[in-house]
């Protein structure tokens, strides 16, 4: 339980820090980079190495690549939909989250089957 609380506090702090950087940096297109900063990874990887070792963390990092490809696809589609249809931002970003899940898990499953 205490590990979960530590994860929560560190995760919240690191993610908030990157979000703050995104707030104060200009131009907006540059600040947008921080929307895809490795905040969750940085918050969690140290704890993972301490508890489960470097090999375990490396296995997580390998899958993170497919998660990043999913994030790229998701962010690109969000960008296109917002620019093309000018829909509500929160609604669009939440409704399109399955694109991240579909791409990430699809790639992970496909690579797991082919190896």
């Amino acid at each position: 339980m205490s590990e979960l609380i530590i994860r929560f506090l560190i995760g919240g702090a690191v993610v908030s820090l990157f979000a703050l950087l995104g707030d104060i940096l200009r131009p907006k297109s540059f600040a947008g980079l921080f929307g895809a900063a490795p905040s969750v990874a940085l918050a969690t990887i140290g704890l993972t190495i301490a508890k489960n070792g470097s090999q375990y963390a490396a296995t997580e990092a390998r899958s993170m690549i497919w998660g990043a490809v999913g994030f790229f696809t998701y962010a690109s589609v969000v960008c296109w939909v917002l620019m093309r249809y000018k829909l509500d931002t929160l609604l669009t970003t939440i409704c399109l989250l399955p694109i991240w899940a579909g791409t990430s898990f699809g790639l992970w499953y496909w690579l797991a089957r082919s190896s």
Partner: protein
Amino acid sequence: MIELKWSSLKETRPSEYVVRFVFGGACTVLAGLVAKRYGPSVGGLFLAFPAIFPSGASLIESHEKKRKAKMGLDGTLRGRVAASVDAAGAALGCIALAVFALILWKGLPTYNAYAVISGATLAWTCIATILWAVRRRREFHRLA
């Protein structure tokens, strides 16, 4: 030109900071729980989960709307275009995020963990900035 605009911190309400903190903390806990239940291979996917992207993008829209409302204008469309620009930036950041993960994957089993994490973070910063600069230059030449 990249610059810091400290005054934009005042535009964010305390409750919005709390929401980000809770989202970030929850996503970190979720990544840990998924890894514990289904193994590191599945849990790793959540290290690249768009944790605060939806709330960040909607904040940009609402700040842009407020700014326009002060001038007596409806900033809804402009806010959504600004959020779209933010998403384009995030897409570039994702390419750097994949490189960050690649460095961790290849480096952690062999080298010192602190050095690998520092190198991967530096690589993310450099690659994201270079990609942004290249794209900006291309757009500039296209418009010129």
